[in-house]
């Protein structure tokens, strides 16, 4: 537990600096207002816009915990969005559309999981295949067009609705985080995942169902990606096979890394990934809101800042850096 606490220290400090920077520049940053029964404010915006990344980061945490990686999540989001929009377009009920989209995500996750756990492909390769082909599938479903969702469709509530003033995406994401943290830490599932990621052979000898655990992690990832895709589609009231979830596989991996999980597997923290996802969205939102002397900051700076930030965090977390530091000090002295 103390180990995890230590890992949360750097990301917490980073988030605090980001928020302080925002608060200094914009005193209204922390203000929350109730407008038409809906909480608004920069903090809510961050959580609301960050909900898809947050969901992806949760699934990615488990996948990375088993020593794997899933590069196909953005493509799976696009497929789920396209499936739901296409079904609604042809007159299916909201429940059918939702179930089919989540089912598509589950199928994608099982496909990835089978290639990795049963066929024995490396996770990067296996999920690369779906990353390449996934958007092709989404375009196949949507016939290469952006499918609009009718403005009065019930499904839009997933992206725009509120409960007790809180946006629905925030509730879904936080609910999923709480559920996952509960399942991972109150049952032995979290431990099993860390075992598989830490030492696969030892886990097998200890009698763990290594293949099923792997399969389950990717299946869950697929479902979470599908939900993220539904939120995205409901948010813009359309399924865009080309742009839905673009770059989000990167964001979600970065969120998990920032959260202090070992990329080699065997150690993960749901709370850390949650923090990581919030940090990534805070960077994006800060840049969108920032202006210096009337000149807005180019959005492209977002990419550079994110990259620098992640590299710096990885560097200070690497053991080689820690070994280097005393060396440099003694050299200076």
């Amino acid at each position, binding site marked *: 537990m103390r180990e995890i606490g230590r890992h949360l220290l750097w990301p917490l400090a980073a988030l605090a600096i980001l928020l302080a920077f925002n608060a200094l520049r914009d005193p209204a940053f922390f203000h929350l207002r109730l407008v038409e029964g809906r909480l608004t404010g920069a903090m809510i915006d961050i959580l609301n816009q960050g909900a898809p990344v947050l969901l992806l980061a949760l699934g990615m945490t488990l996948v990375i915990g088993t020593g794997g990686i899933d590069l196909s999540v953005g493509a799976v989001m696009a497929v789920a969005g396209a499936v739901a929009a296409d079904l609604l377009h042809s007159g299916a009920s909201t429940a059918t559309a939702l179930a089919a989209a989540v089912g598509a995500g589950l199928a994608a996750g099982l496909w990835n999981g089978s290639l990795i756990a049963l066929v024995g492909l490396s996770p990067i390769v296996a999920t690369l*295949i779906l990353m390449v082909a996934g958007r*092709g599938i989404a375009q196949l479903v949507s016939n290469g067009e952006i499918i609009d969702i009718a403005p009065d469709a019930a499904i839009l509530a997933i992206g725009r609705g509120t409960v007790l003033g809180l946006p629905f995406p925030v509730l879904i994401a936080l609910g999923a985080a709480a559920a996952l943290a509960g399942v991972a830490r109150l049952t032995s599932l979290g431990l099993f995942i860390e075992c598989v990621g830490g030492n696969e052979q030892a886990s097998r000898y200890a009698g763990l169902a290594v293949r099923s655990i792997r399969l389950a992690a990717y299946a869950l990832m697929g479902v979470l990606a599908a939900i993220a895709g539904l939120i995205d589609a409901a948010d813009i009231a359309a399924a865009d096979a080309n742009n839905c979830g673009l770059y989000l596989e*990167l964001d979600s991996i970065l969120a998990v890394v920032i959260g202090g999980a070992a990329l080699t597997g065997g150690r993960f923290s749901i709370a850390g990934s949650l923090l990581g996802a919030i940090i990534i969205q805070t960077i994006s939102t800060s840049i969108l809101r920032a202006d210096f002397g009337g000149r807005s900051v180019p959005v492209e700076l977002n990419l550079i800042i994110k990259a620098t930030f992640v590299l710096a965090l990885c560097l200070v977390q690497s053991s080689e850096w820690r070994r280097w530091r005393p060396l440099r000090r003694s050299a200076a002295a």
Partner: protein
Amino acid sequence: MRANLTRHWPLLATGVVLLALYIGAAIAFPGFRTWFQFTRLFSDNATLGLAAVGMTFVILSGGIDLSVGAVIACASMMLALLAGELAWPLWLAAPAVLAAGAAFGAGMGGLIHIFRLPPFLVTLAGMFLARGTALLLSPHKRIELGSHDSVRSLSLLHVADFTLAALIFLAAVTLSALALRWMRWGRTVYAIGSDESAARLMGLAVAPTRIGVYALSGLCAAAGGIVHVIGTQAGDASIAFLLELDAIAAVVIGGTVLAGGRGSVLGTLLGVLILAIITTIPGYVSDLDSWWTRLIIGALLLLFVSLQRVSQHWREE
């Protein structure tokens, strides 16, 4: 003989698929049979090909480079900025861009080697950095070269219908194949990819080799960007988007094992040509949508990694 066969059969499989695709396309579309179309497979895919050559080295060493597409875009913007807006002569601007690409790659290689950070993470960050820089170089995200005569005359240069871009690609393939086969550095790349600690114990220069591999990948990607500028007379920050996936696919389809240590540049050449044919075919069929190419490339990728898996199984037995 048996050992030779198991070693080379992934390459043979790639060759068979390429031949089947080319013959199939030539039967279906008369336009495919021309020499001009054959050379265009090289000319139109020189940028991808150059990136895939660099990627081959990285994958052989057991790593991966996700930044190549972004580096291509960034290099194209840099060249257009230097040669176009700042009016540098091309003999100065092009080497500067190449050096920048190599330095960028070497920096990533240094982080990967010295701090033992995972290659895909460092190059992912590199992808963000390079794409962000490319977009920031011009508010219009695109720089037209205007009337730059030396670049225009280069774009018209050709030998037996092979454009300069295709010739640069083929030269890169040849040089890389020679380096991998005959140079100490090339052999060390294989050694690191097969077993890094064994390579270290043998006294091989692991650090310069690994950093050099990423520098070479950056250099190749920058060359890809330059080739693109020569072809289109403009730098564009949004080109080569996710091209790294196609480059990796070409390398894997070419029989190079993603875990490292086994493969060849010749295979990569065949892999690039396979992708080239697949992406050219929709141009001949009016009702075939281009997203089918994504599905087919994905399916081919699956086929070839499964083949790798099977051959690995054989070897273990």
